[in-house]
Protein backbone atom coordinates (compact mmCIF):
# COMPACT_ATOMS: atom_id res chain seq x y z
CA UNK A 1 0.00 0.00 0.00
CA UNK A 2 2.68 2.40 1.07
CA UNK A 3 4.75 1.39 -1.90
CA UNK A 4 1.93 2.15 -4.18
CA UNK A 5 1.49 5.56 -2.63
CA UNK A 6 5.18 6.33 -2.88
CA UNK A 7 5.34 5.39 -6.53
CA UNK A 8 2.41 7.64 -7.18
CA UNK A 9 4.10 10.52 -5.41
CA UNK A 10 7.27 9.87 -7.33
CA UNK A 11 5.36 9.85 -10.54
CA UNK A 12 3.68 13.14 -9.72
CA UNK A 13 7.01 14.61 -8.79
CA UNK A 14 8.55 13.65 -12.08
CA UNK A 15 6.07 15.73 -13.97
CA UNK A 16 6.27 18.47 -11.41
CA UNK A 17 10.01 18.69 -11.78
CA UNK A 18 9.61 19.40 -15.47
CA UNK A 19 6.95 22.01 -15.52
CA UNK A 20 6.84 22.46 -19.25
CA UNK A 21 5.84 18.91 -20.10
CA UNK A 22 2.42 17.64 -20.89
CA UNK A 23 1.28 15.44 -18.08
CA UNK A 24 -1.56 13.43 -16.69
CA UNK A 25 -3.53 14.48 -13.65
CA UNK A 26 -6.67 12.90 -12.33
CA UNK A 27 -7.23 11.31 -15.70
CA UNK A 28 -7.40 14.70 -17.36
CA UNK A 29 -4.65 15.82 -19.65
CA UNK A 30 -3.38 19.16 -18.57
CA UNK A 31 -0.17 21.02 -18.54
CA UNK A 32 1.84 20.15 -15.47
CA UNK A 33 2.22 23.75 -14.56
CA UNK A 34 -0.92 23.47 -12.49
CA UNK A 35 1.54 23.89 -9.64
CA UNK A 36 2.06 27.43 -10.77
CA UNK A 37 -1.70 27.87 -10.72
CA UNK A 38 -1.58 26.64 -7.13
CA UNK A 39 0.91 29.38 -6.37
CA UNK A 40 -1.64 31.90 -7.58
CA UNK A 41 -4.15 30.47 -5.14
CA UNK A 42 -1.70 30.96 -2.27
CA UNK A 43 -1.87 34.73 -2.58
CA UNK A 44 -4.57 36.78 -0.87
CA UNK A 45 -7.70 37.30 -2.93
CA UNK A 46 -7.81 39.92 -5.65
CA UNK A 47 -11.08 41.07 -7.13
CA UNK A 48 -11.86 43.07 -10.23
CA UNK A 49 -15.10 44.21 -11.81
CA UNK A 50 -16.14 46.67 -14.45
CA UNK A 51 -19.05 48.74 -15.62
CA UNK A 52 -19.36 50.53 -18.93
CA UNK A 53 -17.23 53.40 -17.71
CA UNK A 54 -15.12 52.17 -14.84
CA UNK A 55 -12.99 49.27 -13.72
CA UNK A 56 -12.26 48.64 -10.06
CA UNK A 57 -9.57 46.43 -8.58
CA UNK A 58 -9.55 45.44 -4.92
CA UNK A 59 -7.03 43.31 -3.05
CA UNK A 60 -6.46 42.03 0.43
CA UNK A 61 -3.16 43.00 1.92
CA UNK A 62 -1.40 41.64 4.91
CA UNK A 63 1.71 42.81 6.68
CA UNK A 64 4.34 40.12 7.07
CA UNK A 65 4.98 41.24 10.62
CA UNK A 66 3.77 44.01 12.83
CA UNK A 67 6.95 45.89 12.15
CA UNK A 68 6.69 45.77 8.39
CA UNK A 69 4.53 47.55 5.93
CA UNK A 70 2.24 45.44 3.81
CA UNK A 71 3.26 44.18 0.41
CA UNK A 72 2.07 46.30 -2.50
CA UNK A 73 -0.27 44.32 -4.73
CA UNK A 74 -1.73 46.89 -7.08
CA UNK A 75 0.53 48.63 -9.53
CA UNK A 76 0.19 51.32 -12.13
CA UNK A 77 1.46 50.33 -15.55
CA UNK A 78 0.39 53.39 -17.50
CA UNK A 79 -2.00 56.31 -17.13
CA UNK A 80 -4.95 54.19 -18.09
CA UNK A 81 -3.74 50.75 -17.03
CA UNK A 82 -3.33 49.17 -13.63
CA UNK A 83 -2.47 45.66 -12.56
CA UNK A 84 -3.36 43.64 -9.48
CA UNK A 85 -1.36 40.54 -8.68
CA UNK A 86 -1.96 37.44 -6.67
CA UNK A 87 0.68 34.82 -5.96
CA UNK A 88 4.42 35.21 -5.69
CA UNK A 89 5.00 38.92 -5.35
CA UNK A 90 8.49 38.83 -6.79
CA UNK A 91 7.20 37.20 -9.97
CA UNK A 92 4.47 39.82 -9.99
CA UNK A 93 6.87 42.73 -9.89
CA UNK A 94 8.86 41.16 -12.70
CA UNK A 95 5.67 40.95 -14.73
CA UNK A 96 4.81 44.55 -13.92
CA UNK A 97 8.21 45.62 -15.15
CA UNK A 98 7.61 43.85 -18.44
CA UNK A 99 4.18 45.46 -18.74
CA UNK A 100 5.51 48.91 -17.99
CA UNK A 101 8.26 48.47 -20.52
CA UNK A 102 5.69 47.47 -23.11
CA UNK A 103 3.57 50.53 -22.31
CA UNK A 104 6.55 52.87 -22.45
CA UNK A 105 7.89 51.55 -25.70
CA UNK A 106 4.46 51.80 -27.28
CA UNK A 107 3.93 55.35 -26.12
CA UNK A 108 7.45 56.29 -27.20
CA UNK A 109 6.77 55.06 -30.72
CA UNK A 110 3.14 56.03 -31.14
CA UNK A 111 2.61 58.69 -28.48
CA UNK A 112 -0.54 56.96 -27.39
CA UNK A 113 -1.54 54.35 -24.90
CA UNK A 114 -1.25 50.72 -25.85
CA UNK A 115 -4.49 48.78 -26.43
CA UNK A 116 -5.21 46.89 -23.24
CA UNK A 117 -6.07 43.64 -25.01
CA UNK A 118 -2.80 43.65 -26.94
CA UNK A 119 -0.79 44.40 -23.84
CA UNK A 120 -2.44 41.52 -22.02
CA UNK A 121 -2.04 39.29 -25.08
CA UNK A 122 1.66 39.94 -25.29
CA UNK A 123 2.36 39.09 -21.66
CA UNK A 124 0.20 35.96 -22.00
CA UNK A 125 2.13 34.87 -25.09
CA UNK A 126 5.38 35.50 -23.32
CA UNK A 127 4.34 33.37 -20.38
CA UNK A 128 3.21 30.61 -22.70
CA UNK A 129 6.62 30.32 -24.32
CA UNK A 130 9.09 31.17 -21.64
CA UNK A 131 7.31 29.67 -18.76
CA UNK A 132 5.29 26.75 -19.89
CA UNK A 133 6.67 25.30 -23.08
CA UNK A 134 10.40 25.45 -22.56
CA UNK A 135 12.59 23.87 -19.98
CA UNK A 136 15.09 25.93 -18.10
CA UNK A 137 12.67 28.31 -16.50
CA UNK A 138 9.76 27.82 -14.22
CA UNK A 139 6.32 29.20 -14.85
CA UNK A 140 5.61 32.56 -13.38
CA UNK A 141 3.88 31.91 -10.06
CA UNK A 142 1.53 34.82 -10.24
CA UNK A 143 -1.88 35.66 -11.65
CA UNK A 144 -2.61 39.09 -13.03
CA UNK A 145 -5.74 41.14 -13.25
CA UNK A 146 -5.14 43.89 -15.76
CA UNK A 147 -7.59 46.76 -15.61
CA UNK A 148 -7.48 49.43 -18.22
CA UNK A 149 -9.22 51.82 -20.50
CA UNK A 150 -8.52 52.60 -24.11
CA UNK A 151 -10.34 54.05 -27.08
CA UNK A 152 -12.75 51.14 -27.06
CA UNK A 153 -13.81 51.35 -23.44
CA UNK A 154 -12.96 49.62 -20.20
CA UNK A 155 -11.39 46.20 -19.94
CA UNK A 156 -10.56 43.66 -17.30
CA UNK A 157 -8.18 40.87 -18.29
CA UNK A 158 -6.98 37.92 -16.32
CA UNK A 159 -3.65 36.33 -17.21
CA UNK A 160 -2.74 32.90 -15.82
CA UNK A 161 0.75 31.45 -15.49
CA UNK A 162 -0.17 28.94 -18.18
CA UNK A 163 -0.54 31.77 -20.65
CA UNK A 164 -4.32 31.63 -20.58
CA UNK A 165 -5.97 34.95 -21.12
CA UNK A 166 -9.54 35.83 -20.26
CA UNK A 167 -11.57 38.94 -20.89
CA UNK A 168 -13.81 39.30 -17.86
CA UNK A 169 -16.77 41.35 -16.77
CA UNK A 170 -15.76 40.53 -13.23
CA UNK A 171 -13.11 38.21 -11.86
CA UNK A 172 -11.49 37.07 -8.69
CA UNK A 173 -8.19 35.25 -8.19
CA UNK A 174 -6.20 34.08 -5.21
CA UNK A 175 -7.09 32.28 -2.01
CA UNK A 176 -10.80 31.63 -1.46
CA UNK A 177 -11.63 33.62 -4.56
CA UNK A 178 -14.40 31.20 -5.48
CA UNK A 179 -16.65 32.84 -2.87
CA UNK A 180 -15.99 36.25 -4.39
CA UNK A 181 -16.73 34.95 -7.85
CA UNK A 182 -20.03 33.48 -6.74
CA UNK A 183 -20.96 36.81 -5.18
CA UNK A 184 -20.01 38.77 -8.29
CA UNK A 185 -21.98 36.47 -10.58
CA UNK A 186 -25.19 37.71 -9.02
CA UNK A 187 -24.49 41.20 -10.32
CA UNK A 188 -23.20 40.26 -13.73
CA UNK A 189 -26.03 41.97 -15.58
CA UNK A 190 -26.61 45.06 -13.41
CA UNK A 191 -22.91 45.79 -13.08
CA UNK A 192 -22.73 47.32 -16.53
CA UNK A 193 -24.60 50.46 -15.41
CA UNK A 194 -23.09 50.84 -11.95
CA UNK A 195 -21.72 54.18 -10.82
CA UNK A 196 -18.16 54.35 -9.59
CA UNK A 197 -19.21 54.33 -5.94
CA UNK A 198 -21.47 51.32 -6.48
CA UNK A 199 -18.72 49.49 -8.28
CA UNK A 200 -16.20 50.13 -5.50
CA UNK A 201 -18.70 48.90 -2.96
CA UNK A 202 -19.40 45.81 -5.06
CA UNK A 203 -15.69 45.01 -5.31
CA UNK A 204 -15.28 45.40 -1.56
CA UNK A 205 -18.29 43.23 -0.82
CA UNK A 206 -16.93 40.56 -3.14
CA UNK A 207 -13.57 40.82 -1.45
CA UNK A 208 -15.24 40.47 1.90
CA UNK A 209 -16.47 37.03 0.85
CA UNK A 210 -12.89 35.83 0.51
CA UNK A 211 -11.78 36.67 4.01
CA UNK A 212 -12.96 36.02 7.51
CA UNK A 213 -11.36 39.13 8.90
CA UNK A 214 -12.99 42.53 8.73
CA UNK A 215 -11.94 44.79 5.90
CA UNK A 216 -10.21 47.94 7.06
CA UNK A 217 -7.95 50.54 5.53
CA UNK A 218 -5.03 48.41 6.65
CA UNK A 219 -6.21 45.19 5.07
CA UNK A 220 -7.36 46.20 1.65
CA UNK A 221 -6.35 48.30 -1.33
CA UNK A 222 -8.72 49.59 -3.96
CA UNK A 223 -7.81 51.12 -7.30
CA UNK A 224 -9.97 52.59 -10.04
CA UNK A 225 -9.64 53.50 -13.67
CA UNK A 226 -12.29 54.81 -16.02
CA UNK A 227 -12.92 56.24 -19.41
CA UNK A 228 -12.63 59.73 -17.93
CA UNK A 229 -10.36 59.09 -14.99
CA UNK A 230 -6.76 57.87 -15.05
CA UNK A 231 -5.69 54.87 -13.02
CA UNK A 232 -5.12 55.54 -9.35
CA UNK A 233 -5.11 53.78 -6.03
CA UNK A 234 -7.68 55.19 -3.64
CA UNK A 235 -6.23 56.84 -0.56
CA UNK A 236 -7.43 56.14 2.95
CA UNK A 237 -9.87 59.03 3.05
CA UNK A 238 -11.60 57.87 -0.10
CA UNK A 239 -11.77 54.35 1.26
CA UNK A 240 -13.42 55.29 4.52
CA UNK A 241 -16.91 55.92 3.17
CA UNK A 242 -17.30 52.64 1.22
CA UNK A 243 -15.75 50.76 4.14
CA UNK A 244 -18.23 52.38 6.48
CA UNK A 245 -21.07 51.25 4.23
CA UNK A 246 -19.58 47.76 4.26
CA UNK A 247 -19.72 47.58 8.04
CA UNK A 248 -23.34 48.65 8.07
CA UNK A 249 -24.00 45.73 5.67
CA UNK A 250 -22.84 43.19 8.16
CA UNK A 251 -24.78 44.58 11.08
Amino acid at each position, binding site marked *: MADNFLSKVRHELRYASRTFLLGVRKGVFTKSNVDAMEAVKQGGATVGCKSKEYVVLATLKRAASELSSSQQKIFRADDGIGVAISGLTADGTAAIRALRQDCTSHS*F*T*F*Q*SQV*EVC*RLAGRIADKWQVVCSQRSGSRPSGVGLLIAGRD*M*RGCHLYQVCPSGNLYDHVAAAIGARSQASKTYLEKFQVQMDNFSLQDLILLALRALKEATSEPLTKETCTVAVVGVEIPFRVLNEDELSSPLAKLTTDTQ
Partner: protein
Amino acid sequence: MIPTRVSHNPIIGPGVVPFGVDPAYDAQYKLNQAPRSHVASHGQGKPFTVEPGPHQRTQYPYVTGTTVLGCKYKDGVMIACDTLCCYGSTKRYKSVERIKKVNSSTIISFTGELSDFHYIVSLLEELDTTDYCEDDGSELAPWEIHSYLCRVMYNRRNKFDPLWNSLVVAGVKHGRTFLGTVGMIGQHYEDSHLAAGFGNHMARPLFREKHTDDMSEEDARKLMEDCLRACLMRDKTMMNKFQIAKVTAGGLEISEPFQVPMNWGYEKFKDPTKHAVGAW
Protein backbone atom coordinates in the same frame (compact mmCIF):
# COMPACT_ATOMS: atom_id res chain seq x y z
CA MET B 1 41.25 51.30 -39.29
CA ILE B 2 42.88 54.63 -38.80
CA PRO B 3 44.34 54.56 -35.32
CA THR B 4 42.68 57.02 -33.03
CA ARG B 5 44.99 59.88 -32.20
CA VAL B 6 44.97 62.09 -29.23
CA SER B 7 46.03 65.61 -29.86
CA HIS B 8 45.40 68.53 -27.66
CA ASN B 9 46.47 71.28 -29.94
CA PRO B 10 44.29 74.14 -28.72
CA ILE B 11 43.84 75.45 -32.21
CA ILE B 12 42.95 72.21 -33.91
CA GLY B 13 41.05 70.58 -31.10
CA PRO B 14 41.23 67.12 -29.64
CA GLY B 15 41.60 64.02 -31.75
CA VAL B 16 42.76 65.67 -34.94
CA VAL B 17 46.32 65.41 -36.12
CA PRO B 18 47.43 67.50 -39.06
CA PHE B 19 49.73 66.08 -41.70
CA GLY B 20 53.38 66.37 -40.95
CA VAL B 21 53.14 66.13 -37.18
CA ASP B 22 53.48 62.37 -37.05
CA PRO B 23 55.03 60.71 -40.15
CA ALA B 24 54.09 57.20 -38.99
CA TYR B 25 50.47 58.21 -38.73
CA ASP B 26 50.56 59.88 -42.14
CA ALA B 27 51.90 56.67 -43.69
CA GLN B 28 49.13 54.62 -42.11
CA TYR B 29 46.54 57.15 -43.24
CA LYS B 30 47.73 57.01 -46.84
CA LEU B 31 47.66 53.23 -46.76
CA ASN B 32 44.08 53.30 -45.59
CA GLN B 33 43.08 55.72 -48.28
CA ALA B 34 44.65 53.72 -51.11
CA PRO B 35 42.30 51.71 -53.34
CA ARG B 36 42.20 48.09 -52.30
CA SER B 37 41.12 45.17 -54.36
CA HIS B 38 38.81 42.64 -52.83
CA VAL B 39 38.40 39.02 -53.72
CA ALA B 40 35.32 37.18 -52.60
CA SER B 41 36.15 34.93 -49.68
CA HIS B 42 35.39 31.72 -51.55
CA GLY B 43 37.98 32.68 -54.14
CA GLN B 44 35.59 32.86 -57.07
CA GLY B 45 34.25 35.76 -59.07
CA LYS B 46 35.89 38.93 -60.20
CA PRO B 47 37.91 40.94 -57.75
CA PHE B 48 36.54 44.44 -57.30
CA THR B 49 37.99 47.66 -56.07
CA VAL B 50 36.64 49.81 -53.31
CA GLU B 51 37.10 53.52 -53.71
CA PRO B 52 39.24 55.01 -51.01
CA GLY B 53 37.73 57.19 -48.33
CA PRO B 54 35.31 56.80 -45.53
CA HIS B 55 32.22 54.62 -45.76
CA GLN B 56 29.38 56.51 -47.38
CA ARG B 57 25.62 56.21 -47.20
CA THR B 58 22.91 57.89 -49.26
CA GLN B 59 24.35 61.18 -50.46
CA TYR B 60 21.53 62.39 -52.65
CA PRO B 61 18.24 61.10 -53.95
CA TYR B 62 17.83 59.74 -57.47
CA VAL B 63 14.17 59.56 -58.40
CA THR B 64 12.23 62.29 -56.67
CA GLY B 65 8.76 63.63 -56.28
CA THR B 66 8.21 67.29 -55.52
CA THR B 67 5.62 69.43 -53.74
CA VAL B 68 2.83 67.98 -51.61
CA LEU B 69 0.15 70.28 -50.25
CA GLY B 70 -2.24 69.60 -47.42
CA CYS B 71 -4.97 71.54 -45.67
CA LYS B 72 -7.79 70.97 -43.25
CA TYR B 73 -11.32 72.05 -44.01
CA LYS B 74 -14.71 71.89 -42.36
CA ASP B 75 -15.39 68.14 -42.61
CA GLY B 76 -11.90 66.77 -42.88
CA VAL B 77 -8.55 67.13 -44.48
CA MET B 78 -7.23 66.97 -48.02
CA ILE B 79 -3.82 66.60 -49.60
CA ALA B 80 -2.75 67.15 -53.18
CA CYS B 81 0.26 66.46 -55.34
CA ASP B 82 1.18 65.73 -58.94
CA THR B 83 1.87 62.26 -60.32
CA LEU B 84 5.40 62.89 -61.49
CA CYS B 85 8.67 61.41 -60.32
CA CYS B 86 11.81 62.92 -61.81
CA TYR B 87 15.16 61.28 -62.44
CA GLY B 88 17.33 64.26 -61.72
CA SER B 89 15.52 66.91 -63.70
CA THR B 90 14.22 64.46 -66.31
CA LYS B 91 10.48 64.00 -66.11
CA ARG B 92 10.92 60.26 -66.03
CA TYR B 93 7.85 58.63 -64.41
CA LYS B 94 4.63 60.47 -65.16
CA SER B 95 1.94 58.29 -63.60
CA VAL B 96 3.10 57.57 -60.11
CA GLU B 97 0.40 57.51 -57.49
CA ARG B 98 2.14 59.53 -54.84
CA ILE B 99 -0.67 59.43 -52.31
CA LYS B 100 -1.11 56.12 -50.52
CA LYS B 101 -3.86 54.85 -48.30
CA VAL B 102 -2.41 53.61 -45.01
CA ASN B 103 -5.57 52.39 -43.32
CA SER B 104 -9.24 53.27 -43.28
CA SER B 105 -8.60 56.72 -41.79
CA THR B 106 -5.15 57.75 -42.91
CA ILE B 107 -3.37 58.75 -46.09
CA ILE B 108 0.24 59.61 -46.66
CA SER B 109 2.18 61.37 -49.39
CA PHE B 110 5.81 62.26 -49.92
CA THR B 111 8.41 64.45 -51.53
CA GLY B 112 11.90 63.16 -52.23
CA GLU B 113 13.19 59.71 -53.02
CA LEU B 114 10.56 57.40 -54.47
CA SER B 115 12.24 54.17 -53.42
CA ASP B 116 12.57 55.30 -49.81
CA PHE B 117 8.87 56.07 -49.86
CA HIS B 118 8.17 52.54 -51.11
CA TYR B 119 10.12 51.25 -48.14
CA ILE B 120 8.13 53.45 -45.76
CA VAL B 121 4.88 52.22 -47.28
CA SER B 122 5.97 48.62 -46.74
CA LEU B 123 6.61 49.42 -43.07
CA LEU B 124 3.15 50.91 -42.73
CA GLU B 125 1.55 47.98 -44.52
CA GLU B 126 3.11 45.67 -42.01
CA LEU B 127 1.66 47.72 -39.16
CA ASP B 128 -1.74 47.66 -40.81
CA THR B 129 -1.60 43.90 -41.31
CA THR B 130 -0.84 43.53 -37.63
CA ASP B 131 -3.96 45.53 -36.86
CA TYR B 132 -5.94 43.38 -39.29
CA CYS B 133 -4.72 40.17 -37.68
CA GLU B 134 -5.52 41.33 -34.18
CA ASP B 135 -9.02 41.80 -35.53
CA ASP B 136 -10.10 43.73 -32.45
CA GLY B 137 -11.52 46.64 -34.39
CA SER B 138 -8.76 49.06 -33.53
CA GLU B 139 -6.51 50.63 -36.09
CA LEU B 140 -3.66 53.06 -35.78
CA ALA B 141 -4.84 56.67 -35.73
CA PRO B 142 -3.27 59.22 -38.10
CA TRP B 143 -1.35 60.90 -35.27
CA GLU B 144 -0.01 57.52 -34.17
CA ILE B 145 1.24 56.85 -37.66
CA HIS B 146 2.76 60.32 -37.76
CA SER B 147 4.50 59.71 -34.47
CA TYR B 148 5.75 56.34 -35.70
CA LEU B 149 7.16 57.92 -38.85
CA CYS B 150 8.90 60.61 -36.77
CA ARG B 151 10.66 57.84 -34.88
CA VAL B 152 11.62 56.01 -38.06
CA MET B 153 12.95 59.12 -39.81
CA TYR B 154 14.84 60.39 -36.79
CA ASN B 155 16.27 56.97 -36.09
CA ARG B 156 17.58 56.64 -39.63
CA ARG B 157 19.08 60.08 -39.61
CA ASN B 158 20.91 59.16 -36.42
CA LYS B 159 22.42 56.24 -38.26
CA PHE B 160 23.58 58.73 -40.87
CA ASP B 161 21.44 56.82 -43.35
CA PRO B 162 18.38 59.02 -43.74
CA LEU B 163 15.29 58.16 -45.71
CA TRP B 164 15.31 60.98 -48.24
CA ASN B 165 11.73 62.13 -47.86
CA SER B 166 9.42 64.70 -46.43
CA LEU B 167 6.18 62.99 -45.57
CA VAL B 168 2.71 64.39 -45.16
CA VAL B 169 0.28 62.41 -43.02
CA ALA B 170 -3.41 63.24 -43.01
CA GLY B 171 -6.46 61.64 -41.48
CA VAL B 172 -9.57 61.85 -39.38
CA LYS B 173 -10.30 59.64 -36.40
CA HIS B 174 -12.33 59.85 -33.22
CA GLY B 175 -13.59 63.23 -34.40
CA ARG B 176 -10.11 64.67 -34.61
CA THR B 177 -8.70 65.96 -37.88
CA PHE B 178 -5.00 65.50 -38.24
CA LEU B 179 -2.50 66.96 -40.65
CA GLY B 180 1.20 66.58 -39.95
CA THR B 181 4.53 66.40 -41.66
CA VAL B 182 7.89 64.87 -40.93
CA GLY B 183 11.15 65.55 -42.72
CA MET B 184 14.20 63.48 -43.55
CA ILE B 185 16.04 64.38 -40.36
CA GLY B 186 13.04 63.80 -38.16
CA GLN B 187 11.84 67.39 -37.89
CA HIS B 188 8.07 67.39 -37.60
CA TYR B 189 5.06 69.54 -36.92
CA GLU B 190 1.30 69.67 -37.22
CA ASP B 191 -0.57 72.54 -38.78
CA SER B 192 -3.93 73.29 -40.32
CA HIS B 193 -2.25 73.70 -43.70
CA LEU B 194 1.16 72.65 -44.82
CA ALA B 195 3.37 71.97 -47.78
CA ALA B 196 6.35 69.70 -48.25
CA GLY B 197 9.11 70.33 -50.74
CA PHE B 198 9.29 73.35 -53.02
CA GLY B 199 5.65 74.11 -52.31
CA ASN B 200 6.71 75.24 -48.86
CA HIS B 201 7.94 78.41 -50.51
CA MET B 202 5.31 78.73 -53.21
CA ALA B 203 2.04 77.64 -51.65
CA ARG B 204 2.29 78.42 -47.96
CA PRO B 205 1.88 82.19 -48.47
CA LEU B 206 -1.32 81.57 -50.40
CA PHE B 207 -2.60 79.28 -47.69
CA ARG B 208 -1.74 81.79 -45.00
CA GLU B 209 -3.70 84.41 -46.87
CA LYS B 210 -6.85 82.48 -47.65
CA HIS B 211 -7.07 79.33 -45.58
CA THR B 212 -9.44 78.89 -42.67
CA ASP B 213 -10.17 75.69 -40.77
CA ASP B 214 -13.92 75.97 -41.31
CA MET B 215 -13.87 76.50 -45.07
CA SER B 216 -16.18 74.34 -47.15
CA GLU B 217 -14.90 71.48 -49.29
CA GLU B 218 -15.42 73.42 -52.53
CA ASP B 219 -13.51 76.41 -51.21
CA ALA B 220 -10.71 74.22 -49.95
CA ARG B 221 -10.52 72.42 -53.28
CA LYS B 222 -10.44 75.69 -55.14
CA LEU B 223 -7.71 77.07 -52.92
CA MET B 224 -5.80 73.83 -53.35
CA GLU B 225 -6.01 74.10 -57.14
CA ASP B 226 -4.82 77.73 -57.00
CA CYS B 227 -1.85 76.64 -54.91
CA LEU B 228 -1.09 73.78 -57.27
CA ARG B 229 -1.16 76.17 -60.19
CA ALA B 230 1.15 78.57 -58.39
CA CYS B 231 3.62 75.75 -57.77
CA LEU B 232 3.27 74.27 -61.22
CA MET B 233 4.16 77.50 -62.99
CA ARG B 234 7.35 77.98 -60.99
CA ASP B 235 8.59 74.42 -60.42
CA LYS B 236 10.19 72.71 -63.41
CA THR B 237 9.92 69.27 -61.77
CA MET B 238 6.17 69.45 -61.60
CA MET B 239 3.58 68.60 -64.17
CA ASN B 240 -0.04 69.29 -64.83
CA LYS B 241 -1.48 65.99 -63.64
CA PHE B 242 -2.66 66.07 -60.09
CA GLN B 243 -4.46 63.98 -57.54
CA ILE B 244 -6.36 65.26 -54.55
CA ALA B 245 -7.14 62.90 -51.70
CA LYS B 246 -9.55 63.72 -48.92
CA VAL B 247 -10.29 62.09 -45.61
CA THR B 248 -13.49 62.73 -43.73
CA ALA B 249 -15.20 60.96 -40.88
CA GLY B 250 -17.04 58.99 -43.56
CA GLY B 251 -13.92 57.55 -45.13
CA LEU B 252 -11.21 58.42 -47.56
CA GLU B 253 -11.09 59.00 -51.27
CA ILE B 254 -8.18 59.44 -53.66
CA SER B 255 -9.29 61.23 -56.81
CA GLU B 256 -8.54 60.30 -60.40
CA PRO B 257 -5.76 62.38 -61.97
CA PHE B 258 -6.93 65.76 -63.27
CA GLN B 259 -5.50 68.94 -64.78
CA VAL B 260 -5.73 72.51 -63.62
CA PRO B 261 -6.38 75.23 -66.23
CA MET B 262 -3.17 77.01 -67.14
CA ASN B 263 -2.22 80.02 -69.14
CA TRP B 264 1.29 80.71 -70.37
CA GLY B 265 0.12 83.41 -72.80
CA TYR B 266 0.55 86.40 -70.51
CA GLU B 267 1.86 89.49 -72.20
CA LYS B 268 4.97 89.70 -70.07
CA PHE B 269 5.86 86.06 -70.73
CA LYS B 270 6.17 86.70 -74.43
CA ASP B 271 9.47 88.58 -74.39
CA PRO B 272 10.92 88.00 -70.95
CA THR B 273 14.12 89.94 -71.49
CA LYS B 274 12.22 93.08 -72.33
CA HIS B 275 11.07 93.62 -68.76
CA ALA B 276 14.24 92.40 -67.08
CA VAL B 277 17.06 94.17 -68.77
CA GLY B 278 20.42 92.60 -68.13
CA ALA B 279 19.00 89.48 -66.59
CA TRP B 280 19.92 87.31 -69.55
